[in-house]
């Protein structure tokens, strides 16, 4: 299967007067699994539809492989698209759904009848629903429909596979299963895939790289590790996992969190307002004196979960369960030295 990269240059897309996609430059190399994440309304699906050619009113340049497809209609882009709703054809059997993309080809490029039948059989085996070939989509479960939708998209040997929240309608257990299976399939077939999801955990688990969108613009693109270790701003840090946020002021190379002056941390930022963002498990707790009061403590597996009151504000912290536990009512100091500090442009 010929898989090629995708390149987006200066893509803009308007919905009426409001920009839905703003100045997106993105390069997805051949064979990569990219996850497009962001809060709802960030433009993830719109961007996916632009790439597929289903959103006609955009500007910029778009190429798939070596081919400039900016002005190429959807049906000639050779893209596999799996819709959130699966969009299976209800009046066709599973077999006919998968064969559709081959049957509608102009006769010169259309494979012979038995070749199509053979290919459909292979694909249904590949997605593990061969025994359902003669069923109707209405008779399938969500997970089965998803597999059929995927088989249908793969039937045309797409250069690029686009997946719009394909796991959204599945229950969590099936979801996890199908996710790792999909990743395996991607590697086996050497596909280039772009997955839209609002679930950062899903993206971290399945993708080579993550592109984080906010308000139609790209915030950061990188491997899950890069995004976790070196987030470019507080939004990226907060989106990728649970975090606790403190407003702070930078003075003389130290970021001083409000209400927590004792927890100041050294930073290389100019003086001015800043934001401190830290994962609950990165907060260091020391009993004794301090600005925090333990309200609640409960051991959950390998961690002890604390609720800590800081002058009326309650934050959450996770400490290794092997540490000496603090009891409710105890005073504590908070060590924020592992936090990320972001300057706030005035």
């Amino acid at each position, binding site marked *: 299967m010929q898989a090629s990269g995708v390149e987006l240059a200066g893509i803009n897309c308007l919905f009426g007067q409001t920009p839905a996609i703003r100045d997106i430059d993105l390069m997805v190399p051949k064979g990569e699994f990219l996850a497009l994440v962001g809060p709802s309304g960030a433009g993830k699906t719109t961007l996916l539809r632009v790439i597929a050619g289903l959103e006609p009113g955009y500007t910029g340049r778009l190429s798939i492989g070596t081919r400039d497809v900016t002005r190429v209609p959807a049906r000639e882009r*050779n893209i596999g698209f799996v819709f959130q709703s699966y*969009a*299976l054809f209800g009046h066709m059997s599973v077999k006919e759904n998968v064969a559709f993309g081959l049957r*509608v080809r102009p006769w010169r490029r259309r494979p012979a009848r038995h070749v199509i039948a053979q290919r459909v059989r292979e694909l249904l085996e590949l997605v593990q629903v061969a025994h359902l070939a003669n069923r109707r989509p*209405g008779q399938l479960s969500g997970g089965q429909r998803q597999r059929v939708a995927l088989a249908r998209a793969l*039937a045309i040997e797409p250069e690029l596979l686009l997946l719009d929240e394909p796991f959204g309608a599945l229950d969590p257990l099936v979801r996890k299963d199908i996710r790792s299976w999909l990743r395996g399939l991607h590697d086996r077939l050497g596909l280039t895939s772009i997955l839209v999801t609002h679930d950062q955990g899903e993206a971290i688990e399945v993708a080579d790289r993550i592109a984080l969108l906010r308000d139609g613009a790209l915030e950061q693109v990188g491997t899950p590790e890069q995004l976790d270790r070196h987030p470019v701003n507080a939004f990226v840090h907060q989106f990728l996992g649970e975090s606790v946020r403190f407003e702070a002021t930078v003075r003389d190379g130290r970021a001083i969190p409000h209400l927590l002056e004792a927890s100041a941390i050294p930073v290389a930022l100019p003086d001015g307002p800043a934001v401190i963002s830290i994962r609950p498990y990165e907060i260091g707790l020391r009993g004794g004196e301090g600005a925090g009061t333990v309200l609640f403590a409960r051991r959950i597996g390998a961690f002890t979960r604390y609720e800590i009151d800081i002058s009326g504000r309650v934050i959450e912290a996770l400490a290794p369960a092997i540490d000496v536990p603090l009891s409710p009512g105890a005073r504590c100091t908070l060590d924020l030295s592992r936090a990320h500090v972001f300057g706030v442009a005035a």
Partner: protein
Amino acid sequence: MTLASPAPPRPGPLATSFEPVPGRPRHVPPAGPGKGHGPTVIPGYRLSLGITIAWVSLLVLLPLAALAARPWEHGAGWLWHSLTQERALAALRLSFGTAFLAASLCTVAGLLLAWTIARVRPAGWRLLDAIIDLPFALPTAVAGITLATLYGRHGWVGAPLAGAGIKVAYTQAGIMIALVFVGLPFVVRSTLPVLNDLPHELEEAAQTLGARPGQIALRVLLPAILPALVTGFGLAFARGVGEYGSVIFIAGNRPLVSEIAPLLIVIRLQQFDYAGAAAIGLVMLLGAALILVALSLVRALLPAMAGARQPL
């Protein structure tokens, strides 16, 4: 007399209509306590079933049975003679033939209209949507007189047509116009909701799979709305067979040429030939019933209806 009696509604899961689907263990409802038919969300299952049966018996079956019994009073030979008169045969042929053609025309035009309203959404589509139902509201005689005036030799449409050598009023073409007028709303009303509910993603999926617009229309959209189209055709046809008021003014009513069967019934009634009138009525009833049953069979066999009995 209108034969467009809708198929009696089926209340809840009747024992005969509930067959478990092989190979599909999900959604098999557990037997409800003391019902024997499985559970139903409608309270008063027996009551509603009773009312339905009583309703169908009293208002549909009883009058039809009376109609069916009437023409035999002079014996079968007489009945045969009464029906095989050239005038009766011509009237029946005319009624069924024009109704069939008109329903076909309505199906094509109604599909176009429904498509325009649902997908093209021209400015003022809401008004268009409302206007479509007007033939329902208009007394059929008013419609008939209006059409006859319009298409008559001096009418706004009839005069230019007459100039071109085309005669519409007082011919079979006139009957067709009246039937299309009253039949069109049935097709639009049965098709429009289905078109509105058809997800755009189906078309988009077909596009990404390489289908051209014509292929999308024929292979994806048409099969999905075909059951609704067949229903609309059936309703328009049944209405057309029994249509009286709007037709008699524009038809000219010449025996053997443009005399429709319902009119012949009225004529026989005026001649106190009650059995003869009932005979024609019986044939129309049987014909319409046959066609409606055939259409519902066709509908059930359409690909879009496969698996429709199963909930999603």
